């Protein structure tokens, strides 16, 4: 077997496309057991899943370890998912798997995570750990809606929300960069502070009433022609302006980080600050700006939650979304594209969790844990290790 496989890997197809094919096969294995196809026997799905695993193994042998690992995982998950699906009632499946609604919900759930993850990438690429994403998101979440309510404008509200997150970012920067505090401890403090500050102002201003119903909301972008296309229109025809902004920011940040001199400087500060310093890159200033930017971005994710998505606020509304964003950063190997893929995956699992109660209340809850389980698996290195920026967590002291 080994000799044969090796021979194939030398002469046969390239491991990379095979790996991708494996991932696709795993997805298809699950998909055919769901509406609209609804194959009611698990056999074809299991065969496809097996093929996916085989493709994954092939890719791993061909030195595409990360991708191959994903293909194996996709095969395993697809197989299990298909078996579960074939054992569930058709009616239940049709209730849950309304694909257009699922994908639309996926984008909605992913939006705050995208903002948070992009903020996390900027911050961590500069060499500062940001456990405080959750807190910065929560700040934007409350002060965004608070500002929108006070000024009567969603735009001003969004700016106020972002400013509040940026302010928290500034505090984190001040402590972790200037005072050389332990970055994890300082970031953790941000989360406590944010819960306290937002809760305090929320209770003292709104009391038991909660936020009013007539909050000016972030407008929904209605795409005139696309809206009428059956499937696509349902998914992207009516998404929030902020969702589009998030999706646009991903390639923008990728370009900035990897194709501009400033991005290179930012990354160099996170990898080898002393070397960067020696060629004249202002290490501390770069880090300050990065941490503050991450606060602004994460807060915009929070603004989306309250001002665009829900139109209301409650204490600790973010409920760990900042941590999921952090997970997406790691999951996506500190790259905007990877993080986007991770947030879409996490968003999909949240969308499923939202729709599943139609069929089983308790199973739905388990899907909430999925992002964390997947990230733990990634951190464990079971599927392709990811490497953080080299100087992360180390305060820089100029010589």
């Amino acid at each position, binding site marked *: 077997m080994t000799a044969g496989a090796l021979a194939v890997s030398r002469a046969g197809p390239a491991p990379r496309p095979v790996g991708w094919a494996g991932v696709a096969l795993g997805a298809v294995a699950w998909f055919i057991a769901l509406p609209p196809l609804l194959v009611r026997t698990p056999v074809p799905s299991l065969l496809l899943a097996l093929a996916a695993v085989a493709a994954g193994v092939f890719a791993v042998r061909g030195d595409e370890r990360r991708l191959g690992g994903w293909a194996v995982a996709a095969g395993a998950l697809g197989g299990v998912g298909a078996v579960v699906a074939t054992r569930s009632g058709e009616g239940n499946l049709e209730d849950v798997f309304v694909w257009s609604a699922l994908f639309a919900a996926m984008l909605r759930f992913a939006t705050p995570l995208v903002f948070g993850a992009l903020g996390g990438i900027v911050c961590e690429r500069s060499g500062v750990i940001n456990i405080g994403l959750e807190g910065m998101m929560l700040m934007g979440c409350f002060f965004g809606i608070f500002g929108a309510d006070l000024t009567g404008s969603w735009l001003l509200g969004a700016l106020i929300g972002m400013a509040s997150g940026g302010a928290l970012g500034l*505090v984190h920067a001040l402590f972790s960069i200037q005072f050389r*505090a332990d970055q994890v401890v300082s970031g953790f403090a941000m989360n406590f502070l944010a819960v*306290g500050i937002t809760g305090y102002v929320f209770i003292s201003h709104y009391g038991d009433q909660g936020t009013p119903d007539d909050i000016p909301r972030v407008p929904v972008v209605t795409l005139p022609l696309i809206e009428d296309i059956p499937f696509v229109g349902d998914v992207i025809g009516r998404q929030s302006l902020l969702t589009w902004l998030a999706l646009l920011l991903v390639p923008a940040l990728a370009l900035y980080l990897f194709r501009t001199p400033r991005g290179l400087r930012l990354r160099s500060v996170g990898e080898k600050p*002393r070397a960067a310093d020696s060629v004249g890159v202002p290490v501390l200033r770069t880090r300050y700006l990065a941490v503050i930017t991450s606060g602004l971005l994460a807060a915009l994710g929070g603004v989306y939650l309250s001002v665009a998505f829900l139109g209301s606020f409650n*204490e600790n509304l973010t409920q760990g979304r900042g941590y999921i964003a952090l997970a997406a950063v790691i999951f996506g190997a500190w790259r905007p594209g990877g993080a986007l893929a991770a947030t879409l995956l996490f968003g999909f699992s949240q969308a499923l969790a939202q729709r599943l109660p139609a069929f089983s209340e308790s199973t739905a809850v*388990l899907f909430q844990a999925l992002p964390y389980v997947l990230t733990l698996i990634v951190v*464990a290195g079971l599927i392709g290790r990811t490497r953080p920026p080299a100087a992360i967590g*180390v305060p820089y002291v100029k010589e």
Partner: protein
Amino acid sequence: MRTPDQPDSAPTGGALAGEEYPAGEGARTPAARLAAYIRGGGIVVPLLTAVLAFLIAGLVMLFTGHDPFGTYKAIFEGTGLQWLFPWVTGDDRTTAALNLQQTLILTTPLILTGLAVAFAFRAGLFNIGGQGQYIVGSVVAVWVGSSFAGMPAFLHVVLAIVAACLAGAAWAGIAGLLKATVGAHEVISTIMLNYIAIWVGVWLFSLGGPLQNDRDPSLPVSNDIVEGAKLPVFWGDPVLQGLHIGIFIALAAVVVFWLILNRSTTGYEVRAVGLNPEAARYSGMSVGRNYVLVMALCGLFAGLAGALDILGWQFRLATNDIQIGLLGFTGIAVALLGRSTASGTVAAAVLFGALLSGTSQRNLDPSIFEPELATNLTYIIQGLVVLLVSADVLVLSLLRRGRGLLLGRRRPVPAQAEETSS
């Protein structure tokens, strides 16, 4: 006089070492920082930190139109600590006793979640997963406590506690194992384990979940634990949530913590690994084994905290408790303020326990300050404490400057030079 310049020499070493060992495993581990801290600050810095945090919170109250003195007085009365004053008599004393019981009930898990973080700090690890370990412990305790109805009482309690401790240890051990085998950063893995514990816990007791209440299918709570599994109450009325004996178990755990760290080979190794993992490795210690062991012990403490809360006063577990509980996170503030020492952790746990009970719905007079507002005030105070503790350089330099001013001592030149350069 060699104390002042010691802490300052460390950061430079850390920055240099950080280039040699990526993944945050620089020589300046939290334990090394802590050692510098203890040398530099002693008991003064934590006190200063706490006072500063309360001061800032007082300013917050002032600016939002509340009377900080009146509020702090009301919070203090809510803690019941005035019971300790011999001149408090009559009805006041009875109320104070009731309130103090609440304070100590909250102090019990805080001591243990504090130890769970403190022990990791001493080994150079940051256990942010106390919350998850606490939840795992309480889930297991509530399951054991509500099953095995016919069991003798004492055995039942012991079984529930041991099972919860082991579960907590196993849960935290995952993070230790990942750190030891593949070098996964324990901060990330424990955060993930927290949320996995939260959602799995919610799943277990939510409607239709496997461990949801047998009698009432409309409530997302666990079964009640049986009478025999409840911890005896030794002070106050069991019906009115008197103080259970868990506090003694927690204090015993503090002694165990101190003994392990200071009087055992394991503790020596743990501290050595914490101060400098590379040096420990060269002297033949298994750093990886120590990571697993330390995390498991941390989880054991946090799991015990969960068990004592369930068996001592909660008796059941609702999905809501799992989702909004923060005791494990507060343990981080406890350990940081207590400088990860045994006595410091107890003192900080009493402080935070008092703060939590003094601001609770039950104990705080709502005509003076709304309890919901006060709860958020405690989060602000906790955040400030953690933030100020994180910046040892800041507090130490303030302190050193203060000392120089007060005592007129000549400041060591190199330390000052470095101070200005940053």
